[in-house]
């Protein structure tokens, strides 16, 4: 089994790499879309802007290869933070302030990524810090971790999947925040497991060993 980390230029690759090393596995850093074929599953990290990230994915050929690997070859993918948001069909985070045009995401999970401000979040934005994550059914990714564990979030936009069944876990920030999504081989966490201390490392280990 080989696990890779997608390095497309936006992402805290270092932290994700170290977290895998810590649980005893040296991942392959994928710097060329064509190398995705060399791994069995991959982590898709990301920090930054939705539209900027998607432009890079399109421009350098990542989009086609990720879609091929996940849809045709059914390879498991774990999107983290912006990486999870990019799994969506649409994102409203444009390159310019107040730009309301929407950008097409990877479309692996139906739904939109919207600004917390636009769904009447009354708290300070960004949503930054440790927040309780709740789930009722525990998929392999969350194996061994009790519901109501705190994870580290840092984001301004939230993923609102169309199908509720694809929301595995939620947090609350005066509005519901999608924390974990899953559809078949597609997985995503809005929080940063690689920075969520021991509980987060367990998620990394679960993705490595159980999925």
């Amino acid at each position, binding site marked *: 089994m080989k696990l890779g980390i997608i390095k497309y230029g*936006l992402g805290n690759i*270092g932290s994700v790499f170290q977290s895998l090393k*810590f649980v005893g596995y040296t991942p392959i850093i994928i710097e060329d879309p064509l190398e995705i074929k060399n791994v069995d599953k991959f982590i898709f990290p990301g920090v*930054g802007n939705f539209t*900027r990230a998607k432009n890079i994915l399109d421009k350098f050929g990542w989009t086609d290869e990720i879609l091929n690997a996940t849809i045709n070859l059914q390879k498991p993918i774990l999107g983290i933070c*912006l990486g999870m948001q990019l799994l969506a069909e649409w994102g409203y985070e444009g390159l310019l302030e107040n730009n309301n045009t929407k950008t097409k995401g990877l479309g692996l999970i139906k739904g939109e990524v919207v600004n917390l401000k636009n769904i009447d979040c009354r708290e300070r934005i960004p949503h930054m810090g440790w927040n*309780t994550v709740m789930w009722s059914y525990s998929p392999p990714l969350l194996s061994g971790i009790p519901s109501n564990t705190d994870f580290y979030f*840092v984001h301004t936009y939230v993923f609102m999947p169309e199908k509720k069944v694809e929301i595995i876990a939620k947090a609350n920030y005066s509005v519901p925040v999608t924390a974990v999504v899953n559809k078949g081989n597609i997985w995503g966490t809005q929080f940063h497991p690689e*920075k969520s201390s021991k509980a987060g490392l367990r998620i990394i280990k679960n993705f490595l060993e159980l999925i």
Partner: protein
Amino acid sequence: MLKKRIIPTLLYKDLGLVKGRKFKNLRKVGPVLPAIKVYNSREVDELIFFDIAASDNNSFVDYDTISEFSKFCFVPLTIGGGIDSIEKVKKLLEIGADKISINSAAYGNPNLVEQIANQFGSQCVVSSVDVKKVNNKWTCFSNSGTKNKDICPIIWCKRLEDLGAGEILITSIDKDGTNQGYDLELIQEITSEVKIPVIASGGAGKYDDMYKALELSGASAVAAASIFHFTEMTPNEAKLFLESKGIPIRKNWTLLKT
């Protein structure tokens, strides 16, 4: 519910950790790596690491060192000190930093904050603001408190928010290292003027000081150095105290399990 964060601050100079009083009279604390390992094993909420000599020496703690720290740090790590370009930010995020703190460089080049926010997202920009009272008026200082920037911190913090900063770390130089408590008035002014999270820094001497900054002044997090370096007080004990006072804090997973 979002938790209030307790953040140990690590100040780095001459290859080791230091801590001063009012940004002066630095005392050696010890080597960095063991401190990071201990804080990580105790599951602190977050860590802030500043190379405090960087802006003056036009130097920067080398990337290999930061990379080494990140191998042992599985909680969010903010790196600051002498960061004055997009290239440095990119490199730091690649090797294990999660957030970047900008302080001195922002005064001369405010657009840097905007550029970093645009490229890497607001969430990784922590704007650090050092404040001292001059003629009884709060004033911003850069370069580890040595250069008076002659600007009101409230105005400056609002500007930083508009430029795209994701968080403000506000440090009272007058209170720093004194253990007399945070400058509650200053913190309150900032938290009521900006909508982004604010980290209170400078002056923590007891757990109740943290309570006051979080509860009375509206801070989202409290940073502290001296009390963790020079006393028996710990972030975990601070959390237990705060919890007893009704402040939402993160429970360590290890604690939850036992």
